[in-house]
């Protein structure tokens, strides 16, 4: 059995991964359903009979969620769980790329990518198409905790009626309660990847009501962030935003937000450079410079010394006078002094 520490860190991951289906997350977190989660502020309150967690991760073209899904799968595999993957969008080789052999040995890849609609007629297709593949996952009988990853829910949703998919998902996440002998520790965690732009509000709402945890991916300034909505039975849902990055080995690294959170609409395409680096003048003053600046009297400032200097001209200062001797021809007209200007 994985240690509590393992499940806690899993919770952290789940918390960070906005792209996973929510419902899976809950069960994952709660290997021991009553163990407090470190990252989510409350304890998970899953009862033994409660639906297994399912989590959905919602991504976008710009912020892809498959690497987060793979990071969560890695975590599950490290906890000793068997991981079943229903792969509709990438080939098995591409999906397994980046995992080491230890993890790959725990993954069972159900390949719906190669021939999902049986066009090739080579017999490589999973019999019965996507729906039957999903139902086969529901019927699995191997003991022990299991994680089921659906890559992706979008593909399934585009090819199956929404109601059928939701019912099957419901069966999938509840399958442990069908086996009377299974202990709460052997729950099924369902992870789903959903491309949000591809679906209307109706199917999105239906899926999100099934999910216990919903992680929505976005990002800013080159840093991915996950908004996590976690629903607990009979409690208010909790929201959390977590910044993260995925390392090349698909381990998850939680991070603090980008430094410039105050910029509401940063342009991610222009590298942020400090505009004050190569100025020809100073933007700040040293203490000495500030004192010199404060002590300087500007020419237009009228002070008492200036007033004194104007009122009492000093002895040494030459005083000037204008002498004017009117010429005989000067025609001084008091009423029109500018008369001689020819205007």
């Amino acid at each position, binding site marked *: 059995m994985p240690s509590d520490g393992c499940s806690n860190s899993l919770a952290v991951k789940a918390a960070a991964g906005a792209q996973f289906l929510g419902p899976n997350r809950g069960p994952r977190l709660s290997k021991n359903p009553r163990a407090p989660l470190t990252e989510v502020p409350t304890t998970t309150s899953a009862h033994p009979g409660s639906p297994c967690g399912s989590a959905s991760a919602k991504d976008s073209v710009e912020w892809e969620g498959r690497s987060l899904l793979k990071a969560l799968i890695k975590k599950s595999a490290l906890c000793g769980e068997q991981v079943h993957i229903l792969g509709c969008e990438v080939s098995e080789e591409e999906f397994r790329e980046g995992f080491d052999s230890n993890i790959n040995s725990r993954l069972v890849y159900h390949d719906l990518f*190669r021939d*999902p609609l049986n066009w090739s007629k080579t017999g490589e297709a999973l019999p019965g198409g996507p729906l039957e593949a999903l139902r086969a996952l529901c019927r699995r009988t191997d003991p022990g905790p299991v994680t089921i990853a659906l890559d992706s829910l979008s593909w399934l949703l585009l090819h199956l009626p929404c109601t059928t998919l939701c019912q099957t998902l419901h069966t999938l996440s509840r399958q442990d309660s069908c086996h009377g002998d299974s202990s709460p520790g052997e729950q099924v965690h369902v992870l789903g990847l959903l491309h949000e732009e591809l679906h209307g509000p109706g199917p999105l709402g239906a899926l999100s009501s099934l999910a216990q945890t919903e992680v929505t991916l976005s990002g800013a300034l080159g840093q991915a962030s996950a908004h996590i909505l976690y629903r607990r039975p009979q409690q208010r849902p909790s929201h959390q935003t977590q910044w993260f990055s995925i390392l090349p080995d698909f381990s998850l690294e939680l991070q603090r937000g980008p430094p410039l959170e105050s910029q509401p609409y940063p342009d991610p395409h222009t590298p942020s450079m400090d505009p004050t680096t190569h100025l020809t003048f100073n933007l700040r003053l040293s203490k000495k410079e500030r004192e010199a600046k404060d002590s300087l009297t500007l020419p237009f400032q009228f002070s008492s010394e200036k007033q004194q200097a104007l009122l009492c001209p000093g002895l040494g200062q030459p005083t000037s006078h204008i002498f004017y001797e009117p010429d005989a021809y000067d025609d001084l007209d008091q009423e029109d002094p500018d008369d001689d200007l020819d205007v």
Partner: protein
Amino acid sequence: MFPELNNLLNTTPDQVEQGKLTLLCDAKTDGSFLVHHFLSFYLKANCKVCFVALIQSFSHYNIVGQKLGVSLTTARECGQLVFLEGLKSAVDVFFRPQEEPHPLQFLREANSGNLQPLYEFVQEALKPMDSGEAAWRCPVLLVDDLSVLLSLGVGAVAVLDFVHYCRATVCREWKGNVVALVHDSGDAEDEENDILLNGLGHQSHLILRAEGLATGFCKDVHGQLRILWRRSSQPTAQRDRSLTYQYKIQDKNVSFFAKGMSPAVL
């Protein structure tokens, strides 16, 4: 082939990446220069090319190809290029017995919405030869463009399925490449096109998006090109994965420059 674009994408005809889906997208501008680039690029790279051309005639592509230094006629004669001329063969669909399969069979069937015959045509065209004729480096499928399939009445999911199968066969099995152009109408009410565009975006490894300038027409800057690398094996910062350049299309070339750095402006 535009050498400056090769530099931006960090590729040359001598080192072709394999197993990739490249999505070309144009919004409020004409992105066909990207199609001409990839057509001449892969012909020069000695790849076997299947070109599904639904928009223009063979002679149009041939004339542009000659400007870029490739002859489509020669390539077709020597078997390097398989050209499906949609404009011509669309008519053939109606004048042949219905039993004979035709790649554009969907035109004749009111509600089949299935592109399996087109996929089988691509599969047949690019199937690796067993004989010693294996002179071509890797198979490449080029489609110009997928949006027109929507206009012809095919559903977005059917087009996505077609691309899915092309990926599974050409990219995964034969280690080749797929390049497809899709228009972005910018019309929020065109849901089918949005589903197609976003669905392909999620499948692709590289997205090249040509956009008209937000400020309108300009004589010296014809638009901007956004490059987005997805699904790189080494997760990197978003900043390194996404680049934006402005471009000017010339007679035989396209020049790229950083935003606001057009020689005409400086």
